[in-house]
């Protein structure tokens, strides 16, 4: 027997027994769900998965019946219209998102398992995006059966509307790759014709061959002019229409002048006037830089996708309201304003609406920033994406889909993502001045040389335009920022706003929120004290049985602690609001609740040690005779918090702790982490004032919070970092989002941002120095266009490879 679950790797309690046979050995699993999944995998001959995988799987849960019922809805023709693509008469194709994929072995397992199903024609899973493309024969297998098969091996598959969401992005990306390929191919080939011409002494190449080489260059440059460079023309045209001089204006002018001058030289047989190689090399290098930038943008955009997934796919519709309360499963896309739905406790509300019946609370952290659930009763409005916490609600829908407030927030986030970094904006502004000066210089040198030596005037102008193109300048900042952003995203730190990285490099003070940031932010069982004869496991199991039906945070903490224990059956559960719960377990009456609630019931009151977990909530379990156990439930510190604080302090950064909690809880945390400056009982106004004070002292502040109750102060700080793990919704409020809540990434991010800023500075100095050197040379006629374009290329390559030092190296 192993100590950890064979399937998911979680610890296995000694009291449970869910064995599976794997390669002639008996292995232990932690629960019935994992056992069933492991058995399915082994039985279908895919046990190789366990040999190949590098990370444990997610803990598997048995599918509740209503989810199975929902999955079956996907078989309806009407619903399939939106995401299923009919290929031939019976073969259909759908895009699915797979949840739970952690490593390559998962991809392999899912592929093999789906492929084995009779009726499945093909399946193809994308490792990077976790999307599956499944093609099946509709007469032999239904879509719901495929989805069920995926859940049988412990993953979840959701249909994904690829047509609408991704088609456009996909098309643009493919077009960018094609343009880059065309330019690259043309550059290599044209260079092959150009090198002999440059290297051979004058007259060494027979004039006939020379012109043949030039004509060949022209043919191979045409695709670049007509296809690859089109985005530059479009941007220039857009800039011209708005009356500005943009980055792409000199590029377009440079390409056009160089191309048509070369064409003119070719037709008129002017030797040393053909520079098609410069054109294609120039276009290729610029397109390459843009392509790299696009990759990082897309990475950051994936954060929004998880917000969209907040809205559930299904709802329970009460079709005959108010005559009957019976509900049927319906998809959210089928809901119309005016429909009445039932939202059970723990479920997400699928649309904006008004409560018709029920008394509950909803967690609206997403929109209002309020972390506590807000009471909802008849007549109150509810918002899509918020979670119903305590009891069922009947809701009349007023808005769905794109009209909801959540959709509005997603649009905001999209906009923030499209924002350009401040540094890049500054570089652009600088570059547009540069461009204007450059165009003047080019025109000026043409006119000047027209009087000195008319034959050379055109070529000197081309050299001026090509040598100094501000691509090194415009490439310097985005390339470095892109590389650093990509590196961080790979580690698990998403940058959602452009300016975040550069501000991070200048940060001198870090302010932490307590709950949810340095601590886990949810209730966990910290310690258990036995007061009677029962063992720890027995009393915990009874407590969990009593809390079986409750959604209260304390109940969840107890259930979480008892997850591995077999739970006895409980009956006659009766919860007394604000006090506790009473019920029968194995024929005996038990109570679980606050010490006062228990003492009202017992003949001999019990007492707890005075200082036992003063910062926790205490819950006592008792039967008629005496109190049996006491549980201290409170927040626990994240494992990597102390190390992270120490690392920050070593870097000379001031660490502050701000919390709305009581002094004793905050002080004990600050002491254990070594934070000298802490403030307890801080209201949101206090927090704002504190950060404002620091800023007035001229300090740059990084605020780290869980994004829910800290929304205003996160907005006020110079740069903010939201924890992304607990609540997906928190992501909307931070400049950066810490996925997986790994605090250790914060010092790493600070170090990387410093390095990135250093590299940007080097790049800008290099670009400025190069231009200062090259421009006078070109104007004075010491550079031919081909030397100019080589100089430009070398300069761009130096800038890009300098930036690439920030890219994460694969170990």
């Amino acid at each position, binding site marked *: 027997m192993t100590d950890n679950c064979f399937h998911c790797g979680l610890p296995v309690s000694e009291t449970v027994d869910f064995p599976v046979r794997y390669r002639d050995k008996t292995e232990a699993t932690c629960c019935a769900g994992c056992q069933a999944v492991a058995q399915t995998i082994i039985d279908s*001959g895919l046990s190789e998965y366990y040999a190949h995988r590098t990370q444990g799987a997610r803990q598997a849960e048995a599918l509740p019946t209503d989810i199975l019922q929902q999955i079956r809805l996907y078989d309806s023709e009407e619903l399939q219209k939106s995401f299923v693509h009919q290929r031939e008469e019976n073969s259909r194709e759908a895009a699915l998102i797979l949840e739970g994929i952690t490593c*390559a072995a998962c*991809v*392999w397992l899912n592929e*093999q398992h789906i492929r084995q199903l009779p009726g499945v024609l093909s399946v193809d899973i*994308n490792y990077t*995006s976790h999307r599956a493309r499944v093609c099946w024969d509709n007469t032999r297998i239904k879509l719901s059966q495929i989805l069920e098969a995926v859940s049988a091996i412990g993953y979840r598959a959701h249909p994904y509307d690829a047509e609408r969401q991704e088609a456009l992005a996909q098309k643009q990306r493919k077009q960018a790759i094609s343009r880059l390929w065309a330019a690259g191919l043309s550059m290599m080939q044209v260079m*092959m014709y150009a090198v002999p011409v440059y290297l051979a002494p004058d007259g060494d190449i027979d004039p006939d*061959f020379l012109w043949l080489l030039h004509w*060949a260059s022209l043919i191979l440059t045409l695709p670049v002019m007509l296809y690859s460079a089109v985005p530059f023309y479009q941007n220039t045209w857009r800039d011209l229409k708005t009356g500005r001089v943009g980055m792409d204006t000199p590029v377009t002018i440079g390409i056009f002048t160089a191309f048509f001058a070369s064409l003119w030289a070719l037709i008129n047989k002017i030797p040393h006037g053909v520079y098609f190689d410069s054109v294609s090399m120039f276009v290729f290098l610029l397109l390459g830089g843009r392509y790299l930038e696009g990759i990082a943008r897309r990475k950051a955009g994936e954060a929004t996708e998880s917000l969209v997934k907040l809205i559930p796919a299904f709802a329970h519709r009460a079709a005959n309201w108010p005559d009957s309360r019976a509900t049927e499963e319906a998809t959210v896309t089928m809901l119309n304003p005016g429909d009445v739905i039932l939202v059970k406790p723990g479920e997400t509300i699928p649309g904006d609406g008004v409560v018709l019946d029920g008394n509950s609370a909803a967690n609206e952290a997403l929109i209002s920033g309020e972390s506590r659930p807000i009471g909802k009763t008849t007549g109150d409005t509810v918002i899509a994406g918020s979670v119903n916490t305590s009891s069922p609600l009947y809701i009349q829908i007023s808005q769905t889909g794109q009209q909801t407030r959540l959709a509005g927030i997603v649009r905001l986030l999209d906009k923030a993502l499209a924002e350009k970094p401040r540094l890049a904006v500054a570089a652009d502004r600088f570059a547009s001045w540069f461009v204007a000066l450059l165009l003047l210089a080019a025109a000026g040198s043409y006119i000047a040389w027209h009087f000195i030596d008319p034959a050379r005037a055109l070529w000197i102008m081309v050299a001026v335009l090509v040598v100094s193109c501000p691509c090194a300048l415009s490439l310097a900042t985005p390339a470095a920022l892109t590389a650093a952003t990509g590196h961080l995203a790979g580690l698990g730190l998403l940058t959602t706003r452009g300016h975040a990285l550069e501000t991070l490099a200048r940060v001198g003070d870090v302010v932490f929120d307590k709950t949810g940031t340095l601590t886990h932010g949810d209730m966990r069982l910290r310690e258990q004290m036995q007061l009677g004869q029962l063992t720890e496991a027995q009393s915990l199991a009874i407590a969990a049985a009593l809390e079986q039906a409750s959604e209260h945070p304390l109940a969840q903490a107890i259930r979480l602690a008892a997850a591995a224990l077999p739970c006895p059956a409980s009956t006659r559960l009766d919860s007394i609001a604000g006090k506790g719960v009473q019920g029968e377990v194995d024929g005996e009456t038990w109570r679980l609740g606050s010490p006062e609630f228990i003492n009202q019931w017992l003949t001999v009151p019990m007492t707890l040690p005075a200082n036992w977990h003063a910062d926790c909530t205490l819950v006592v379990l008792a039967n008629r005779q005496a109190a049996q156990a006491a549980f201290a439930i409170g927040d626990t510190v994240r494992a990597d918090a102390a190390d992270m604080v120490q690392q920050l302090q070593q870097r000379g950064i001031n660490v502050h702790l701000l919390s709305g909690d009581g002094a004793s809880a905050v002080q004990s945390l600050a002491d254990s982490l070594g934070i000298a400056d802490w403030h307890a009982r801080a209201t949101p106004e206090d927090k704002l004032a504190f950060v404002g004070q620091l800023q007035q002292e001229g300090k740059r502040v990084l605020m780290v919070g869980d994004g829910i109750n800290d929304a205003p102060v996160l907005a006020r700080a110079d740069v903010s970092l939201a924890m992304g793990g607990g609540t997906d919704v928190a992501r909307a409020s931070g400049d950066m989002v810490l996925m997986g809540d790994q605090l250790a990434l914060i010092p790493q991010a600070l170090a990387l941002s410093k390095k990135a800023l250093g590299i940007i500075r080097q790049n800008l100095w290099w670009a400025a120095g190069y231009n200062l050197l090259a421009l006078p040379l070109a104007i004075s006629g010491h550079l031919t266009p081909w030397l100019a374009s080589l100089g430009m290329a070398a300069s761009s390559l130096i800038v890009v490879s300098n930036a690439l030092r920030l890219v994460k190296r694969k170990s």
Partner: protein
Amino acid sequence: MESLYLLIPLSIVLAFVIAVVFWWATRSGQFDDMEGPAHRILMDDDRPAEDKAAKASDEH
């Protein structure tokens, strides 16, 4: 040297052929997933075939 009259046009044709091949490759999704195939090749499985053979022999 006269062979250049043939070779240079040939190289142009070749370049266009390569361009078409790349165009086809992007269109058909060869660059969509840059990581998956690298992992997949390591998990080339021959076990299911054995299992199937074993199952088939069991049935006899």
